[in-house]
């Protein structure tokens, strides 16, 4: 069997915007994914505090959710976001790497349902959470 996690990793790391943000796939498999994004001054949303813009946090969460869908045993191939909601709990601490973890908790022939959390070094207090639905596409 061709290792689907290898394919997913190659797919994620070939995404031009994932490269621009320095996203790294740390773990993937069975509908779960973990991706990191290093602190980068280009991504600052508030120049007075150095806090990363919420949009960059949205991007790592969206990417991580998509990766989780593709790694699900019932997903035949690609995916696209139908809808994504992000709740911002607090500002990410400047200088720290953001880690996103996503879980595809239910999948049908057509739709995958995903939840995700973004954290900085303090894993007990999430920076943001996401919940979304994604398409399930053929090979």
């Amino acid at each position: 069997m061709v290792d689907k996690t290898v394919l997913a990793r190659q797919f994620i790391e070939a995404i031009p915007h994932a490269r621009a943000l320095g996203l790294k796939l740390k773990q993937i498999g069975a509908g779960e994914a973990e991706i990191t994004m290093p602190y980068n001054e280009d991504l600052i949303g508030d120049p007075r505090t150095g806090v990363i813009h919420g949009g960059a946090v949205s991007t790592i969460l969206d990417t991580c959710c998509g990766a989780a869908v593709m790694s699900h045993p019932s997903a035949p191939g690609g995916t696209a976001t139908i809808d994504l909601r992000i709740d911002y709990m607090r500002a990410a601490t400047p200088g720290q790497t953001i880690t996103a973890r996503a879980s595809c908790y239910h999948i049908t022939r057509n739709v995958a349902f995903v939840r995700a959390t973004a954290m900085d070094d303090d894993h007990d207090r999430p920076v943001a959470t996401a919940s979304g639905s994604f398409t399930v596409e053929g090979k």
Partner: protein
Amino acid sequence: MARPRPEPMQVVKQRRDAALHALVGGVPYIRFLNISFDRRGDELTSVLNFDDKLIGNPLLPAIHGGVTAAFLEVTAVITLSWEHLFPRIEGGEIDADAIVTDDSIRFPKTIDFTVDYLRSGLPRDAYARAFISRAGRRYASVRVEAWQDNHAKLFAQATGHFLMPQSPSAKG
């Protein structure tokens, strides 16, 4: 009694454009995505200037869903800030320099943001406009629409809630 003579057009434009430039230009992430703003009076349209690094699906190709979300969120935050500050800019209370240096002028904070992806984002420029459904003293609700070639065919829409910046004198 005669009404006061209107200000010369270039004075009005210079003041408004300088304030908008100060609001947008200071944010590194807006430069990173290369988002610019067109202003007509107080109405803003944001432009996501296409670049290959915005691609999320190289096979189609299509703009990254996260970039679309970020573009809509930037549009919402800047439009909300602009409408919040516009009366004070027009009243001469604050100017472009104050926007850059005055620590009491802060951006609204996103509480939540929900994006509907209606079509894939084509590899070309995108446009967005935000509509403030309600702006209260503490919370604001904003709707955003984004399109590319045809304004009638939105490729994404979003709604979000924001915590408005509190003036230093206000409680809490």
